[in-house]
């Protein structure tokens, strides 16, 4: 009897963690001050902890290679896993508020690293509140891509200020993004899609990508297909609304 009671959180056949044991509510309160460690400043972020093969010891992070992609609210890690092999030379990280979900992604990455030697060494996850602490992780103009896939809609008007895309938070995202860097957003909630698009349009440091540019970008197709959330929407025949913008230097904005 005791044997069957032991939870096999990692599946014996695939070596990957089983989602069943990492279920969490879809919603997490961004206002609650959970106590997780936050680096005092970006230089204090330990790269050797997250990318051990690339940075064998903590003093090796000489600043030449830095994280360039950030998936904000990475959920179960679907997008990151796809990006990891598409951009094998780029360091990327997922940020997630829910601890169980973060644990799942950690296990997933570790299992993938074991099963595919040499691969998936460039991707990691951290449990944090990205609405408060983004400047603690990334230096000015460090990132080249930021992802906000299917963020919490916070439907009630009084909760709109909790949305991860807001005119105020865009100031911070513009700060960590290099000029020319791209912000990708997608949602299946039309009202939220309109909101995110209008926040980006009204912000002096972002400008929309043209249709041609969207077609040419291999990452755009991943937005709706790579994540569990996106796949669920496709299964249910739902519509998605995306807004992809480029970080610009304010004087360059034509409108």
């Amino acid at each position, binding site marked *: 009897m005791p044997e069957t009671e032991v939870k096999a959180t990692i599946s014996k056949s695939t070596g990957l963690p089983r989602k069943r044991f990492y279920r969490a509510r879809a919603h997490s309160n961004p206002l609650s001050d959970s106590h997780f460690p936050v680096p*005092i400043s970006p230089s204090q972020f330990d790269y050797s902890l997250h990318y051990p093969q690339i940075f064998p010891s903590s003093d090796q992070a000489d600043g030449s290679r830095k994280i360039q992609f950030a998936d904000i609210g990475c959920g179960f890690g679907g997008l990151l896993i796809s990006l990891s092999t598409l951009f094998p030379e780029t360091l990327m990280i997922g940020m997630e508020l829910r601890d169980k979900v973060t644990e799942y992604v950690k296990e997933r990455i570790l299992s993938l690293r074991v099963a595919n030697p040499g691969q998936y060494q460039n991707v990691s996850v951290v449990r944090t509140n990205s609405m408060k602490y983004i*400047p603690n992780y990334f230096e000015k103009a460090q990132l080249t891509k930021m992802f906000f896939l299917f963020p919490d809609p916070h439907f009630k008007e009084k909760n709109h200020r909790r949305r991860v895309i807001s*005119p105020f938070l865009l*100031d911070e995202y513009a*700060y960590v993004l290099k000029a020319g860097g791209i912000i990708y957003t997608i949602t299946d909630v039309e009202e939220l899609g309109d909101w995110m698009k209008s926040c980006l349009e009204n912000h002096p440091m972002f400008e929309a990508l043209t249709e041609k540019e969207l077609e040419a970008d291999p990452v755009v197709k991943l937005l709706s297909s790579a994540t569990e959330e996106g796949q669920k929407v496709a299964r249910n025949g739902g519509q998605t609304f995306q807004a992809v913008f480029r970080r610009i230097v*304010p004087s360059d904005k034509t409108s």
Partner: protein
Amino acid sequence: MEETEAEAEVESNRDNVEVAPALIAVHPEQTSVAVAVGPDLRVFDLLAGSAASLVDECGAPFHKDSIRAIRFGSRGKLFVSAGDDKTVKIWSTESWRCVCTVSSEKRVSAVAISEDGCHVCFADKFGVVWVVDVAGSHEHVALGDRKPTPLLSHYCSIIPSLEFSPDGRFILSADRDSKIRVTNFPKKPLNGAHEIQSFCLGHTEFVSCLAFVHARECPQGLLVSGSGDSTVRLWDISSGVLLDTCEVAAKAGLLESNGEAEEHGHAVTDLCTTISGLLIAVAIQSLQGLVLLSCDVSAQTLSVSKVVSIAGEAFVPTCLGFSPAEGKLWMVTGVSSLPACNYPPLSRVRVISAIDAEQEPVVLGDDEIPGGEKLLETLQGSASVDESAFLAAAEAVKTAMRNLLIKKQYPADNRESRKKTRNDRKLKM
């Protein structure tokens, strides 16, 4: 019942102390000095040698709840007061008329006036910084009520301090999540300040106060900041680089002999830069007196110059002000009310002169301070103050600051009972 016991425990861990520290502000030319205690705003006109009579359409009391921030504009034409009554009042310093009242949605925690006197910024308790256009208000013309527009925000944080850089290029906002944000102050601030210049990251606790060291070699100024982590730090704001850290509480001898500090007991509460900017006065919780730091601009370092104590009084300053014209440092200690006591709002003013790296600072006696007894009567409410209340006042202010700026630590054991009101938990019952 277990539930109510656990709840009562969480409650008592945070004494519900809602008191406001006394504040002081000195006109740049020392023509007047203002003290705020609770909702009471007291101004003494040093030129006239008497209390200034404040005039406002709404009539006294001008503020209906504790005032949390006061300051004079650097040009001396404007004075701003704001606080828990969710109003920001802008006064002309010539007539002491309130020329403009701005309504805030939330309580106000900090105010700043742009160098050119055209804009007033204030921070509300949700971490949003608002801006209002006050150009032309010094000409005795009442502007009536103005609507503020949002300038920037620190997500869900409290901003205890707002400052403009001396050259007016940047606005700095410090928050309780240990961050200092340096943002370009645009020509049209009513559209928001979106371009962040840098973040000054290094403090490990809330940042309570900001001030600039003015140095000829450094026209944009060097920033000094004080924090709940008991340090004062020096920064280069263009790059956000931390230049030096001074462990003021340790250096002032406040730590216990075994080297352990009482948790959160020695927060830096206020900072003030002085003439030529090279000496910085620092007020620390539990320190009776203050620490003078000197700043070496070329080496970009801070060091303790002197520890000044106020003889004969258990004086823990709650706020500092400096008058560049006269070279005097003004201090106030006090609190809006003392819970469980019958003391009226308390405030005590002292002045230190000869703030100089070479000389010994002199704590002036009551008869020696500018304005003398009349000033003390106006600003303190009476010429002499019952000293026995000082320490109780200091404790009340310390607790209030901790409650406001330090994150609540809920005990893990009753976490499940605290979730009982959550909708998805209710169904299980």
